[in-house]
């Protein structure tokens, strides 16, 4: 008995948190948005999402099996999450081969080329998305209209402009904020319903998967810059990929800062850059670029923003 005792340094208990708990937690938080996209875009949404998830998991598996040997992370949910997030950033009528290319770029270039989960600098799903946006601009910006009539067709659906392109091209009066909040607008699959995405945010805050700092500071950045540039902040918040980006993409653990102060700077900058791109850039949409830019700045932010050390606050604080 004696020598069979396990001897290891403290702590001797663990809280039971794990990578997969967090990843599956985020997936659960995405369910409301998924349901809305099924309701709005029908079968197409389901097929694109499934394709993307399966493709991401396949590439993760294949690369880990044949190219790099390391921890097997197929089942921890991170590849599936990348798949869902990629799909949510695509229109539901996109040809499936494009989805598969996106998945290859997301996992292969965005994640595995850096050494797998935890080592990537940029958000893999966004790397995939931006690659597709640049390579296939037409297919990536042909948005189906959210409409019951489109629900059971996949490819030949009615298409229309997104609220942001309407604004960009001078038709702001056609934008209905209420439709955007509920989700009955054109757009990428996962980005259309503000309410569904906010529900997801609440879930993740409740489960302590993320803290409030990043989403809230992004909202703040958007509001401040919209007011400065004369845009309607509410419309800017409710449209395009803003909510999806702020809640699910910018909060990606691996590519966001480690200290609260850093998170606030990172978030505010994402919000601000998004509005600048929307107002002055060539694209009507800017969240993806803003997040990728700030992903790249994250190591720098981590070097300069330290958490508040104990003993540094005022004595009687």
């Amino acid at each position, binding site marked *: 008995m004696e020598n069979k005792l396990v001897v290891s340094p403290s702590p001797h208990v663990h809280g039971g948190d794990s990578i997969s708990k967090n990843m599956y937690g985020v997936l659960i938080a995405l369910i409301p948005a998924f349901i809305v996209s099924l309701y709005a875009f029908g079968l197409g949404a389901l097929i694109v999402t499934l394709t993307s998830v399966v493709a991401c998991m396949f590439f993760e598996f294949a690369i880990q099996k044949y190219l790099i040997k390391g921890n097997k992370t197929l089942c921890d949910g991170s590849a599936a999450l990348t798949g869902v997030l990629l799909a949510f950033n695509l229109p539901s009528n996109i040809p499936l081969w494009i989805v598969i290319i996106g998945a290859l770029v997301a996992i292969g270039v965005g994640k595995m080329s850096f050494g797998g989960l935890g080592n990537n600098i940029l958000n893999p799903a966004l790397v995939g998305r931006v690659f597709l946006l640049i390579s296939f601009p037409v297919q990536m910006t042909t948005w189906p209209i959210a409409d019951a009539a489109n629900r059971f067709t996949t490819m030949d659906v009615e298409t229309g402009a997104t609220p942001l392109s309407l604004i960009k091209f001078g038709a702001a009066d056609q934008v209905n904020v209420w439709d955007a909040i509920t989700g009955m607008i054109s757009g990428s699959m996962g980005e259309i319903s503000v309410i569904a995405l906010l529900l997801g945010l609440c879930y993740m805050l409740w489960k302590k998967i993320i803290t409030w700092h990043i989403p809230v500071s992004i909202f703040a950045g958007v509001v401040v810059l919209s007011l400065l540039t004369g845009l309607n902040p509410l419309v800017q918040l409710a449209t395009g990929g803003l909510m999806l980006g702020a809640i699910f993409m910018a909060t990606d653990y691996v590519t*966001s800062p480690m200290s609260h102060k850093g998170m606030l700077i990172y978030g505010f900058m994402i919000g601000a850059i998004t509005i600048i791109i929307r107002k002055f850039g060539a694209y009507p949409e800017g969240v993806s670029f803003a997040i990728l830019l700030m992903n790249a700045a994250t190591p720098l932010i981590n070097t300069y923003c330290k958490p508040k050390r104990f003993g540094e606050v005022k004595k009687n604080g």
Partner: protein
Amino acid sequence: MLKTFRIGGVHPPENKLSAGKRIEVIGLPKQVAIPLSQNLGAPSVACVAKGDEVKVGTLIAKAGGFVSSNIHSSVAGKVAKIDEILDASGYRRPAVFIDVNEEEVWEESIDRSETLIKDCPLSSEEIIKKVAEAGIVGLGGATFPTQVKLSPPPGSKAEMLLINAVECEPYLTSDHELMMEKTEEILVGISILMKAIKVDKAIIGIENNKPDAIKLMTDRCRQYTGISVQPLKVQYPQGGEKQLIDAVMGRQVPSGALPIAVGAVVQNVGTAYAVYEAVQKNKPLIERVVTVTGKSVVKPSNYLARLGTPISMLIDAAGGLPADTGKVISGGPMMGKALTSIEVPVTKGCSGVLIMPTLEAQRQKMQNCIRCAKCVNVCPMGLEPYLLMSVGEREIWDRSEKERVMDCIECGCCSFTCPSNRPLLDYIRISKSKVGAIIRSRK
């Protein structure tokens, strides 16, 4: 809102299985082994030799330096040998072995009656001298010699005495039970400590998971001037000195400084009891309350055990070592030490014996750091454990120092929380010893 400390912290399952179990006295073993290093600082120096007869309370080892303490015999008997014994950390250290006589003879000066003596006519210096003679150390587990803490360095002035009755470690209940059974003695002990450091205010910090102790202490402390109770929100590591000061007084001790820098002196509630016994009853520190607990333990209990009693005797009293035992820990699950053997003796710093089943004893497989920042969020010192681990792995000691690795209080919140099961604190400990050595070599 209840008070607590402001940065980080976790709330592990409390598992206070032995709460409310009255303190039982453990019988005498045939032989005790009293280690010579039972305090933080220099080991004590034996002043008895093989063959000497000792009584209960006879001085057997003297303080071996300024930061050191006396040790007394916990039994009456004959010194069998002075030899090495395996201590709680798994090192071989010298100890005095005493064969126990059947008949208990106590030193005549010790008052063994139960009568409460409230008045203490002694001066501050006399109290501190008595505390030093009695070999009292911080009984919360830190084992810092108490007389040193009571003698603030010149130029600093204590404003307030804080009594640590937080017992934030899961499972442990020895302080809780002591408060329930020795309430008045503790309060007299606190008054004596106040006199020793010349303050007129003392606050007892108790976590809210001990409502009975909060109520009892609050009721009783009305008869003592200057003492009050502060209930605290349950949050680990609130028993850390700096965290307790922050929680109760709202002041943060600067990096590298002592609590006295913000006017506080912190003592454990068990220490206050030992001070009462030493000053009012002339009884040196020869026994302590030890919680024996664990999910498979038949009878989780609180025991009063003489120093030097083998831990196996306590485990037997609690129903024996369970069949599924994987790990035996001296102390609590967050900061305790895993024992290599259950024959190690009870020492001054042993607040509990926790027996963990095999299933919980092993660590989970480590994964990549996913940079979730959860370790940063829970660190009560505002450090970045993930970063300290990675610079520690790469042995960049100057960066470790700059990132304030020496501030780490080794509470374990980071390793407890990490979803990737990374052994953050293991690496941080190594870094601390390296960086500590570098800092000392500079002087």
